[in-house]
């Protein structure tokens, strides 16, 4: 299952700082220090690097890292999630069972009678450790459910382009990108800047004093004001305003949150 690039969906980052050369042992060592380790039975999340070829392979010493113009590896995130509704339901059942056991031990009135409910409520209120006991019960139930829940796995390839000092995460998921930035920064002691239009503009205009060049930039309206559009449009062959003839032929412009679609 060798890594292949059939389709590309990616976010690009600038590496701010020095990453060891991708051919070097130092690069491999940094990755090896943060390899993926499966979450323990009671951990909700685990995150780390795996090879680009196989998400179960974390042996960066022998892995082929450099591919063409870049180094390729992958980010693996395993998550276990227990539904909070199930946790609450299990706690409730467990809590009832404990209270019943307490009553039975003390020989109290049967469940359902008024005395019984008064007795339980009174006891619960009077119980000094009630809140702590419930918190402990929640922890136990959550751990037990986590043990029974297999983790879900996400794998996102990462491409480091040393010549451009950029790194690409092949995912646009916000959660994956946040996790990636944090782990990459911790692995290589660098920071990553998303190459947004603004950031790219700062870089490209550096020779012209980027901040000054961008200082006067204001939003541009590409639509002409209605009256002017009608006057100029008459000479440019534009259709008359929507309210006249075009309104009957074209679909009305969406003013509602429902997106228009044309197929």
């Amino acid at each position, binding site marked *: 299952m060798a890594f292949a*690039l059939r389709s590309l969906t990616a976010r690009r980052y600038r590496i701010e700082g020095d990453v060891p050369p991708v051919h070097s042992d130092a690069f491999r060592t940094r990755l090896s220090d943060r390899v993926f380790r499966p979450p323990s039975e009671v951990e909700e999340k685990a995150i780390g690097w795996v090879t680009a070829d196989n998400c179960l392979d974390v042996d960066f010493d022998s892995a082929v890292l450099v591919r063409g113009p870049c180094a390729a590896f992958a980010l693996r995130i395993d998550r276990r999630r227990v539904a909070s509704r199930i946790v609450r339901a299990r706690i409730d059942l467990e809590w009832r069972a404990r209270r019943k056991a307490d009553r039975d031990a003390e020989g109290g009135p049967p469940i359902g009678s008024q005395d019984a409910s008064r007795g339980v409520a009174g006891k619960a209120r009077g119980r000094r450790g009630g809140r702590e006991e419930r918190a402990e019960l929640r922890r136990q139930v959550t751990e037990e459910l986590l043990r029974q829940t297999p983790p879900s796995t996400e794998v996102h390839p990462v491409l480091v382009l040393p010549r451009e000092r950029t790194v690409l995460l092949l995912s646009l998921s916000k959660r994956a990108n946040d996790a990636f930035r944090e782990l990459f920064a911790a692995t290589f002691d660098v920071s990553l800047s998303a190459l947004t239009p603004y950031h790219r503009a700062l870089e490209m205009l550096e020779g012209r004093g980027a901040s000054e060049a961008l200082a006067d930039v204001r939003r541009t309206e590409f639509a002409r004001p209605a009256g002017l559009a009608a006057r100029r449009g008459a000479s440019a062959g534009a259709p008359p305003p929507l309210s006249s003839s075009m309104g009957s032929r074209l679909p009305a412009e969406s003013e509602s949150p429902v997106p228009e679609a044309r197929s």
Partner: protein
Amino acid sequence: MIRPVQRPLDERGGMDYLGPEFLTWLVWRASQRPEFRHADATPVYVHVDDYLELRGERGAAKRTVLRAGMPAASAEGKVALRHGKTVCSARLIFARGEEETTFTLRAEDLDVSSAKLPTPDGESSEERLEASLYSMRRLYDDLDLCYRTFLEVRCSTGWDVEADSVRDWVAQASEEERAGLAAG
């Protein structure tokens, strides 16, 4: 514990409109002068493929999505632009010699998605992967070329004239509208 934020709070620098303006300009430019040239004179041709998404200033509440056909030449696309919307996402084709790359560009963060890279040559899977990675790098080079060309005019005194040309194009009847008017 609240950890300090390492990165700037707004990575778009308060200029959320810059990406959509670029993509709107690129759609216009593709319809007028689709050729861009690298410093080594390599030409790149830009075309709009079959997907265009336009948004109003306040985001998704006013959205026009055009799929299939030639959305850049459609009446709906022009009408949306005349209502002040800008292109926030488009499926583009970058042609460089024999090589064509189709991809969707999301304007706000310049994210590339669903890029169909040229079919790679090579005997082994390793060679094909390397060829794909080089194609990917060329895609970003071409995208940077377009964005640089936009910035050069955007941050110059020539922008008013350029923006006016875009406005003229927006105001002009689209091919669909012209066909409809002629038939009517």
